[in-house]
């Protein structure tokens, strides 16, 4: 353990740079996925005839082994951050899409009815009633997606995108367990920190009325 401490101190600059790369890949990909999957999830919760096929496609993407997807991306996007971000984006879709869809479906029909009764349009019902009520579940999907993506992003080192996976695979290749830990520990810490931060964001976003209920 002392040796690991020395290794860490010696290479802390590199570790920091790799952590930032890792964060950059993950956050860019998840942000894009939120931008795409939340509206899509809202849409398919209203158009039930396409919901099964859209969720099906997202499910199929999720089952493609990560390295295979990265290898496939190579043909179109080469190596580096681009194919990595696209692959991570694809892997983040399902949790966000599924949670958004489920959350909106689970909104109590009586509340929607009441909103209508008060004279709200369908758009107003969505923005003022359904989305606020769905936020905790949607946020849970985003948090799941982020934590999964931080894990998968380690593989992106194999297509030259950098990140903390660099240390892990270099450590395996060079038979050096200290190097492996240099990648594993920061990525685990990163996952915990990001999840905590998103938890805070969730608290800020969820309307006050809902919080009182929970006590």
């Amino acid at each position, binding site marked *: 353990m002392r040796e690991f401490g020395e290794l860490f101190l010696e290479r802390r600059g590199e570790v920091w740079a790799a952590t930032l790369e890792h964060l950059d890949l993950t956050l*860019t990909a998840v942000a*894009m996925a939120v*931008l*795409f999957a939340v*509206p*899509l999830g809202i*849409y398919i919760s209203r*158009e039930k*005839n*396409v919901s099964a096929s*859209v969720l099906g496609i997202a499910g199929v993407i999720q089952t493609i082994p990560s*390295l295979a997807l*990265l*290898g496939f991306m*190579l*043909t179109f996007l*080469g*190596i*580096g*951050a*681009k194919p990595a*971000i*696209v692959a991570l*984006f694809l892997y983040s879709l399902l949790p966000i899409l599924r949670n958004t869809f489920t959350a909106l479906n689970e909104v109590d029909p009586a509340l929607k009815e009441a909103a209508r009764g008060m004279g709200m349009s369908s758009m107003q019902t969505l923005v003022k009633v359904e989305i606020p009520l769905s936020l905790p579940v949607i946020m849970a999907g985003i948090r799941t997606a982020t934590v999964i993506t931080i894990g998968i992003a380690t593989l992106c*080192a*194999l*297509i*030259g995108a950098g990140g903390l996976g*660099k240390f892990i*695979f*270099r450590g*395996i*290749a*060079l*038979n*050096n367990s200290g190097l492996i830990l240099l990648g594993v520990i920061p990525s685990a810490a990163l996952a915990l920190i990001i999840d905590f931060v998103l938890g805070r964001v969730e608290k800020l976003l969820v309307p006050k009325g809902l919080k009182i209920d929970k006590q």
Partner: protein
Amino acid sequence: MSNKLQSILVLVGLIVAIIIVFLLVFTIRGEERDHDKIIIGSKEFTEQLILAELLAQLIEAKTELKVERKTGLGGTLICFGALEKGEIDLYPEYTGTGLKAILKHEENITDSEEVYELVKKKFMAEYNLEWLKSFGFNNTYALAMRKEHADSLGISKISDFLAHSELACGFTAEFNERDDGYPGLVRHYGFRFESDPKDLDPGLMYKAVKEKEVDVISAFATDGRIQAYNLKVLDDDKKFFPPYYAAPVVRSAILEKNSKLGDILNSLADHIDDVDMSRMNYEVDNDGKSPSQVAKEFLTREGFLRKKD
């Protein structure tokens, strides 16, 4: 009726919108490659990392060119794909790998000169890539076992497995799939292990055999861990494995642009034999030195880092 059409339009619209956002983000990130730099790639194992460092440090010492290292890429096809797309300019490749894994040449050739001439000709014709001269060592695939285990069973050559099909194997995923790996080996020697070989990471394979998790692995002949873990390499008595001489593969455009580059890289030709390479690998795998340190020591010892000539 038109409901379905509308759904499809909305979905297509969403997809188009996200593609536009992707293009925007990629443009803002601006990752266009710098054409004044030489980008050196490598696969993710000790020997490749050392070779990439040797080439990089040689270029840095002998020219004014800047070098960027994109080393540790995941496997032959990712390295080759990146080279073909011009995302890297060169990487060290093995003649047998070029022949079998990239050109998918079916016929078995065991003469090293013949293999080299063939890949050189075909890579130029098909991909416009140049094979420079070989470093001089042959990192062939080799089946390896724990020495005392092999000796106790009386196994010294691959055809001895005909009588020992009960052994447990752990091969790299590439070896399990490639025609110059297990499938071809089975056809050539006419034996098959009772249980299917496990897929193991090349870095973990040696430890697995040392810890007796498996009995036979698809080692690389110049790997430092063969010596470090006291493994025995079995004789390829029916001459199945093609030669795997390592040489830099370079994009022709880069050689044309920098006329001296080819000569500089070729100065390493026939300078590293099997023993040199095994020793350098051993220094990294066993002594914990970094690939760049080992490369620097070699270049210094062999007089490559003296003042410009």
